[in-house]
């Protein structure tokens, strides 16, 4: 099992795609797709082939890197990271497929950036040296920012700068916390260490650990994103190209949740316990605020972006309830939301490619001309508002059931978020696919359509493939959530959480 190989081949594949595009147009996308497929296959095969027990963290590589600070190059995997890496690789294929026609300029460099950000994300999910983690955490921002800033829409520079500054500044807070942890390790053991598993053994004084926890928490809350540090997300989503949005919603937001699970809760159990009411409140506020704001949007992508804030609120609430069921719900929400929001952003991209607008008032009546697209859209909005039978339902149900045991009142409030999501989901679907055909104005001004008609082309084979694979996964997980959950039945994490919860 060689994660380094996975990351390197993604990078090299990206570089090759960039290089090849110079010789033969449109070779980049094939190369990129091929790279991701091969890498994904390799990952799946080698995971199943190794006999390691991933229910606890298995360190795969550990080399010394920067001796002056005793920094190591250390990668590890457990079921949590495996699930997230698999999600990443799957969405990588989706990303490449949705950009197939959309990206027409500077194509080679585009695919390089896309693959580089996937490599960075995989690094984030596997690094267990904290310096290395921070390194990947920041490095994955660079290609993502480039994706927004070069191939984005009208206001791309603003959105890219906002995205970068939010994550970078919060990242510096985390860096300070990381350095402080290393120096505490030095005080206690006479040796500097950035190794995650060394830190687990530290005995942290309560007064300091609260501030350290806060440093990590802010960085991850920005990425998640949680109210009040969410404001970069709608802008970044709206301006990013389709694949950028899919990548952001499907994968990058998950790094925040992953950080909360792996680092905040594990490294500072007591401090996060004390902080839990605040964090849970933030989660509930995000759920309700996100749902309310989503309802108020006229922009297709902005609406989905706010709905992401709402769904990520469930993750926050569930994680800070310190309950095994809620934790399983949170992990499932990560997967389910990764798939369903990726689908909705892909849908937004396909609509945009047909009518060159994201404005809901320019849409309407698409069902007449594109029934297949309409059907998928209905299924995905249903997934977003948690229709039973789809993955999101199980995920949110578990989260709420678990959270109820710790925060009954807040969970009741959070459940209203489900009602809200049904409302904005229906608003989205109705205004785009039902009602009168409203394309006249748009059609005339843009000259995209013939006068008086609002016909759009139905899904192409490629788009059909994207949607059906996403929907199939949503349904499979919805009916058989154990596919994901078995890995988290008796993980050490659950034990750790319940034991600390019980100890209180």
């Amino acid at each position: 099992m060689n994660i380094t190989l996975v990351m390197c081949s993604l990078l090299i594949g990206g570089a090759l795609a960039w290089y090849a595009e110079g010789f033969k147009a449109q070779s980049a996308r094939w190369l990129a797709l091929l790279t991701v497929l091969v890498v994904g296959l390799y990952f799946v095969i080698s995971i199943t082939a190794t006999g390691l027990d991933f229910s606890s963290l298995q360190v795969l590589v550990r080399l010394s890197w920067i001796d002056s600070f005793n920094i190591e190059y250390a990668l590890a995997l457990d079921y949590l990271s495996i699930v997230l890496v698999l999600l990443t690789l799957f969405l990588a294929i989706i990303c490449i497929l949705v950009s197939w026609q959309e990206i027409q300029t500077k194509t080679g460099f585009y695919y390089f950036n896309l693959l580089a950000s996937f490599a960075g994300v995989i690094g984030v999910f596997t690094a267990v040296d904290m310096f290395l983690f921070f390194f990947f955490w920041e490095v994955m921002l660079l290609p993502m920012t480039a994706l927004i800033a070069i191939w984005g829409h009208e206001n791309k520079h603003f959105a890219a700068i906002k995205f970068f500054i939010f994550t970078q500044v919060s990242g510096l807070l985390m860096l300070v916390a990381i350095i402080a942890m290393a120096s505490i390790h030095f005080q206690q053991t006479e040796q500097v260490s950035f190794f995650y598993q060394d830190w687990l053994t530290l005995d942290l004084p309560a007064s300091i650990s609260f501030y350290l926890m806060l440093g990590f928490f802010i960085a991850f809350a920005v990425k998640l994103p949680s109210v009040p540090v969410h404001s970069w997300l709608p802008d970044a989503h709206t301006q990013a190209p389709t694949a950028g949005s899919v990548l952001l919603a499907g994968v990058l937001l998950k790094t925040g949740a992953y950080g909360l699970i792996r680092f905040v809760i594990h490294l500072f159990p007591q401090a996060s316990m004390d902080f839990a009411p605040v964090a849970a409140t933030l989660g509930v506020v995000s759920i309700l605020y996100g749902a309310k704001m989503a309802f108020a949007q006229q922009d297709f992508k902005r609406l989905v972006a706010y709905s992401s804030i709402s769904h990520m609120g469930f993750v926050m609430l569930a994680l800070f309830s310190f309950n095994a069921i809620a934790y399983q719900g949170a992990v499932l929400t990560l997967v389910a939301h990764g798939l369903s929001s990726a689908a909705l952003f892909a849908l937004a991209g396909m609509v945009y490619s047909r009518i060159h607008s994201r404005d809901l008032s320019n849409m309407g009546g698409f069902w007449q001309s594109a029934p297949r697209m309409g059907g998928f859209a209905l299924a995905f909005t249903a997934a977003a508002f948690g229709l039973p039978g789809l993955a999101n339902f199980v995920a949110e149900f578990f989260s709420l059931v678990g959270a109820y045991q710790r925060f009954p009142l807040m969970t009741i409030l959070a459940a209203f978020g489900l009602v809200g999501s049904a409302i904005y989901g229906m608003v989205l679907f109705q205004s785009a696919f039902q009602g009168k055909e409203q394309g006249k104005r748009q059609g005339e001004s843009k000259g995209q359509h013939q006068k008086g008609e609002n016909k759009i082309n139905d899904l192409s084979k490629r788009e059909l493939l994207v949607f059906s694979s996403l929907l199939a996964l949503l349904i499979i997980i919805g009916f058989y959530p154990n596919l994901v959950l078995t890995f988290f039945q008796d993980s050490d994490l659950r034990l750790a959480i319940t034991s600390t919860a019980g100890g209180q």
Partner: protein
Amino acid sequence: MTQLMLQSLSPLLIIAFGSVLSLLLIAWRRSQKMILTFTLAIFVCALLASISLVMNLTDEVQVTILMKVDNYGNFAFILILVASIAVGLLSSTWLTHSVEVHDEFFILLQLVVLGAGVLVMSDHFAALFLGFELLSIALVGMVGYSRDSQYSVESSFKYLILSASASSFMLLGIAFIYSQSGSLSFAVEAEPIYSFFYSSGILLFLVGVAFKLSLAPFHLWTPDVYQGAPTPVTLLLATVSKIAMFVVLMKFWFSQSSLIVNNDSVLSTLHLISILAILSMLIGNVLALKQQNIKRLLAYSSIAHMGYLLIVLMIISPQSVTLAWQSALFYLAAYVLATVSLFIVLQFTEYNHEDIEQNINDWQGMFWKNRLLALLIIVAILSLAGIPLTAGFIGKFYLLNVAVQAQQWWLIAALIVGSGIGLFYYLRIVFTLFSDVSEEKNSSLIYPAVGAKLTPMMSISVIVFILAGIILGVYPDLLSQVF
């Protein structure tokens, strides 16, 4: 003078002897090519001598009462020499478009390097002042060197007057310190009685240094002089003069820090330094936000960088001094690397489009036309912004380590806010490189410099700088094992 002393002083001696020889060379024959080659040869010899010194020197060597040669100073001198070689090469392209022969320019350059060398080796106020004046006076000549240019008088006068007042402040401060400690050496053996005079002496001394380092609120000259001076000279100001002043400040500070801790009234000096640092970080970054001219922008960002660097002075426990030195030198190395990279591009585009005023927009769309040069800018800018993968990030990591050890949470907060603000203008430059020229109206033909071809020599050096910026960011041990 023993063999060892002579050996450890050899880099300085090479420069001093070389500048005398250059004077003779000018008297013999005036040829710009010759003097350039000779200057570069001197620098390279001194560089080799310094490198061999760093390899072999195990302990610090006291050379007379005036100087102390140690590896920190040596490393700083290597940085100075590298920057000066870059300055020499850049000025050769700049000086060619004039009929006159500019031999004097190179002599001044050698004197600046000599002054900087004296500063980084000094262990005594007399050596400090000697080096300081040698550096300043030669720089005044260089700042106003292109006398036909619009800004040359303004900027050289500004620089002259302000560095003269800075040195008088400094002298007064030195006198006050001497009146209390009774010694001009940095290291004071006896425990003198400290009083108001000692702390005000340190205060005045700091004011003098702060002028040179252009720390807020003594930064007002920086943008004008940066903009007005010829590009290679600006590079000299931004690198050589700052490295030398900062290193000598550290030498003084850490020699007397044990006294400073014991002295109550001097503790306020620490507060003063943190105020200077916070002001510089914030003011430098905020004022850089709206700049269009690249040199002015770099001037403001250098104010902020010197503010970050002041954090290392907050270390007062003797066992952490090594960390402070390592951090400062690494940060300086990353800063010099990034600054030299940017000035290479600046000189190249300026040379190709004959306009002295260089705005950020002149670099528009460079990534699509001249990928190598644009990559160099990106690496340099990201390094200045402290983004991982580049040397600047490791520098910032070192500084944060120092700050956490010294428990200076306010400074950390200012550093975070400052770098957040800094990202605005750094990213603006990077985005300009990527912006599509064809999107903008009729701007495609105005800036041919962006697409100008690089000579093979130039391409190689650009690649070297890109690699250096990234390698030091990914594998910093290469550098940090030196000191």
